[in-house]
């Protein structure tokens, strides 16, 4: 009997031990202290969103503002019977809409608010606000939308998207469905523009219904408004550039040389920034992003990588002087071209038409003589014992101008371009058989050299400064205080000595005085420039189709103490002197003088449409599609 009495007490004690071990496991081993924190699922965070910062141009013109709109929200379980007729009249909706929306909201959640009607007009809001108390379960939520008073600069300003799941996971600040700048300065300066959201912690029950503040609100924070930004952009110049680029493709980049401030950053074709706002945004963005013909979402000023063409000769000359393979007086002869190797086809043509007399650097630039720069490049590449060493040296000079890599400006898109190094050629020619004739196209800015318009503009700024530049940037002031960002206030010295610039700049000056841009010179200004014409073609089905050349122009003005440096690139614009050069002059005149002396050219450029040329390309491209 006694033995049997032991079983039950034993069971009781064992049970006690099992329970305590299980509790130990649950509450001490598996206990996650984060679980009791503000991340607990029982705590609802209610955010107050500050107003996003405004954006102004360098002269204080408003570029981006906010517009208040109002959404009507509904929590289905809190809806009490109401006068549907009056309600529909108030919101200007019909009964079908009401029923449909209510059903959808119920479907989503009976306890959570869902949008019933989005973006009420201000007048409708005013009426509704007085009567909303009658409609239990309905509420009005203010929403701030971006508003652009000018239909300009969409590439600079960018746009705002809703935070997606991925970003919400990456960045704990954001929650899905919030707004975040995704392009342009909205993205780059998101942290300044957005401000800091405020948060209230509310306790909620398992039906997600809020039952009161969490710990009497000791963790709650208030929101901090976004900062207002002033850009370096001159809105008038920017709009003018956009006007000039009408019906063309390409980009204009204008930089203030002695600060690195970007004065204008034009891309064409462009779009109205108001398209990427509000209710119609999703529809428009599909259209804009899918436009693979015009590619309006690509900022050609930053992202289009082209061969630089003749403007590249400027820097070739500078490197020649710096490497002491030429002096300003060194002369070369041109025989309508340059024969760089034996054989009939190894001949690079030239249109300078200076035959029978030596051409020096200044004249070479003014007349854009291919032979001259082929000779310079030959000397550069053959200066050191191996072409590898020479190319390395040559590329180092180019890198010091910010070419071949990201410039470091404060906009989120860009391309590296390409400055071929000896490694690059060793990879292409693994047996290292490459020599000067292999890479001769580089001499005149074709071949493997690729730059973006902003790199080119920056290069011109460095030339205008005679040897240094500041990293181009677009932010000027934050809340009316000038920015002090070391990256943008540090002089970046190039590898070219100051005295070597004079003959090159003189050559650029001659381009306006007597060269390819003579027809668009402005008498009051000492302008310096260089045209470029880049051949291009596309291959389809093994057939090479010649296309109209890209038209390039680089310029700065005035010659002494320069105020503006720019690079213009017009796709398939033909000779540099015919489209890009007038645009440069018009931009310079607009910015420095504000006059309209080149009225003829202004009208002509604005009315020039290259659509026909682009359509031709399209038809060539579609050949293949048709075959398929």
């Amino acid at each position, binding site marked *: *009997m006694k033995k*049997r*009495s032991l*079983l*039950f*007490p034993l*069971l*009781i*004690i064992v*049970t*006690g031990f*099992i*329970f*305590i071990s*299980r*509790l*130990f496991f*649950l*509450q*001490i081993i*598996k*206990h*996650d*202290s984060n*679980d*009791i924190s503000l991340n*607990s*699922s*029982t*705590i609802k965070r209610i955010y107050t969103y500050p107003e996003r910062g405004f954006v102004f141009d360098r002269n204080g013109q408003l570029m981006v503002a906010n517009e208040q709109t109002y959404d009507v929200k509904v929590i289905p379980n809190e809806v009490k019977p109401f006068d549907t007729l009056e309600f529909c009249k108030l919101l200007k909706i019909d009964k079908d809409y009401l029923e449909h929306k209510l059903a959808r909201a119920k479907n989503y959640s009976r306890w959570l608010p869902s949008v019933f009607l989005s973006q009420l007009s201000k007048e409708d809001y005013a009426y509704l606000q007085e009567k909303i108390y009658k409609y239990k379960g309905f509420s009005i939520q203010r929403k701030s939308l971006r508003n652009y008073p000018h239909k300009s600069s969409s590439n600079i300003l960018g746009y705002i998207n809703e935070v997606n799941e991925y970003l919400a996971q990456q960045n704990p600040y954001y929650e899905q469905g919030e707004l975040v700048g995704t392009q342009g300065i909205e993205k780059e300066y998101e942290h300044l523009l957005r401000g800091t959201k405020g948060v209230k912690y509310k*306790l*909620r*029950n*398992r039906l997600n219904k809020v*039952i*009161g503040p*969490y*710990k009497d609100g000791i963790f709650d924070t208030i929101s901090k408004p976004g900062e207002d930004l002033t850009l370096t952009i001159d809105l008038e110049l920017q709009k003018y550039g956009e006007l000039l680029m009408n019906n063309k493709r390409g980009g204009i980049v204008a930089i203030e040389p002695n600060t690195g401030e970007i004065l204008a950053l034009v891309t064409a074709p462009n779009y109205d920034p108001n398209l990427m706002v509000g209710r119609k945004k999703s529809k428009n963005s599909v259209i804009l992003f899918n436009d693979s013909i015009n590619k309006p979402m690509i900022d050609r000023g930053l992202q289009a990588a082209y061969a630089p063409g003749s403007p590249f000769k400027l820097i070739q000359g500078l490197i020649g002087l710096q490497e002491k393979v030429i002096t300003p007086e060194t002369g070369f002869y041109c025989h309508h071209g340059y024969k760089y190797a034996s054989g009939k086809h190894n001949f690079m043509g030239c249109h300078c038409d200076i035959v029978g007399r030596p051409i020096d650097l200044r004249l070479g630039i003014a007349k854009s003589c291919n032979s001259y720069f082929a000779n310079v490049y030959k000397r550069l590449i053959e200066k050191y014992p191996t072409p590898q060493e020479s190319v390395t040296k040559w590329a180092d000079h180019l890198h010091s101008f910010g070419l071949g890599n990201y410039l470091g400006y404060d906009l989120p898109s860009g391309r590296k371009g390409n400055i071929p190094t000896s490694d690059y050629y060793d990879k292409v020619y693994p047996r290292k058989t490459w020599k000067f004739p292999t890479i001769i196209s580089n001499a005149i800015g074709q071949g493997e050299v690729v730059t973006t318009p902003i790199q080119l503009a920056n290069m011109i700024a460095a030339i205008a400064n005679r040897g240094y530049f500041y990293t181009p940037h677009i932010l000027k002031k934050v809340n009316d205080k000038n920015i002090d960002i070391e990256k943008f206030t540090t002089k970046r010295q190039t590898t070219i000595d100051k005295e070597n610039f004079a003959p090159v700049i003189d050559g650029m000056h001659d381009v306006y005085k007597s060269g390819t841009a003579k027809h668009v010179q402005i008498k009051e200004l000492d302008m310096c420039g260089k045209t470029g014409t880049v051949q291009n073609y596309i291959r389809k089905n093994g057939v090479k189709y010649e296309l109209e050349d890209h038209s390039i122009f680089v310029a700065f003005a005035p010659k002494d103490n320069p105020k503006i440096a720019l690079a213009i690139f017009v796709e398939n614009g033909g000779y540099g002197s015919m489209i890009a050069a007038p645009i440069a002059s018009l931009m310079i005149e607009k910015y420095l003088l504000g006059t309209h002396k080149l009225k003829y050219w202004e009208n002509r450029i604005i009315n020039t449409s290259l659509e026909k040329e682009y359509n031709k390309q399209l038809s060539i491209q579609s050949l293949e599609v048709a075959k398929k």
Partner: protein
Amino acid sequence: MRSQRNNIKLEIDWILIFLYLALVGFGWMNIYSASSSADHNEIFDFAARYGKQIIWIGLGILISVFLLFIESSFYEKFAAYIYLATMFLLAGLFIFGKNINGATSWYSIGSFSLQPTEFAKTGTVLALARLLNDRQFSFKPLKNKIKTFIIITIPAILITLQPDPGSALVYLSFILLFYREGLSPNILIVGITAVALFLATLVFGYIYVIGGVLVVTTFILWYIAKGRKKSLRFEWPKILSIVSIILGYVYSVYYLFNYVFKQRHRDRFNILLGLSDDTSDIGYNTYQSIKTISSGGFWGKGYLQGDRTQGKFVPEQDTDYIFSTIGEEWGFWGSMLVVVFFITFILRIVVLAEKQKSTFSRVYGYGVACIFFFHVLINIAMVIGLFPTIGIPLPFFSYGGSSLWGFTMLLFIFIKLDASKNYEL
């Protein structure tokens, strides 16, 4: 009479009284935490559950005092009638009962509901004590086995039919009492083996279990064949028939589980056995309850500070899942203390029961301990995720007047019997 009453007061087991009051008091604090809200937090708000519970507790104490003043011989004399009365109450539910949450378990008088299930336990233990009190009683004769079986089967069936199978399971706990009082341990062993095989079949699959049984059988037969124990030599037909019964059982468990059980039954077992990770639907209660307890940590979040409790994340948190409130707000030390209190409480009843001079009191005390043990075991094991969801209350903690009164009566009848053990032999 006067002197005897004084003596009784001295003989009352104050340890049990203290534990009872401590558990009831702490229980009420947790009901308050789980059922109060921002709108309802006045302590004497009788519309709220914690307010009603105050009334139940007050009346419960009155009942307990009343019980202490009843002659202890009354229970023995009237045990059978009390049993019958509670059985009639159970049976009457099928005519007068009120259906709440799908079970016809309540009599409803105005706003007041009474759950006779909670009182049937007292009646049954009294009846068992009365039956086993007979000096000639032994479990040997089949007649006695059947009598005992009938006493516990009637309430079990009536309760199952409500349907409230969780509460019916409580009557299984008397097997411990019967073992103590001389029932053959074979029944206990067979029962435990059956449960173990059942679980093993579900967890490992019947093929492995059958394989395992065959391997073990082979070893046993080989052992016998080597002839170490001659006496066992002629036992092999017996062994083989046992093995075939086991194999049949295992296969029928498999068959029952997969082809006879409904999906919801399977789900409960699957979640319990860790065979399914579904936390959204069927396992929601258990998942929320474990998470809530786990979030308490060592020290807990503090009384009324449990955000999951205050957010009412755990369903039925003031009734069956009340222990999760303790786990969250009082942490490991608090919930451990509650477990220790319960263990001490039950052990104390067992120890006192063993000291009883009369069989009636001993059997009654032991039966009371069995009921408390079963409730605590099933309820806490369910809330901490060791058992499947079986809805029975945690004594003194779960909200509800009937259950509080039922447990109070169970306990105080025993305290009275214990207090008079020296006077009324």
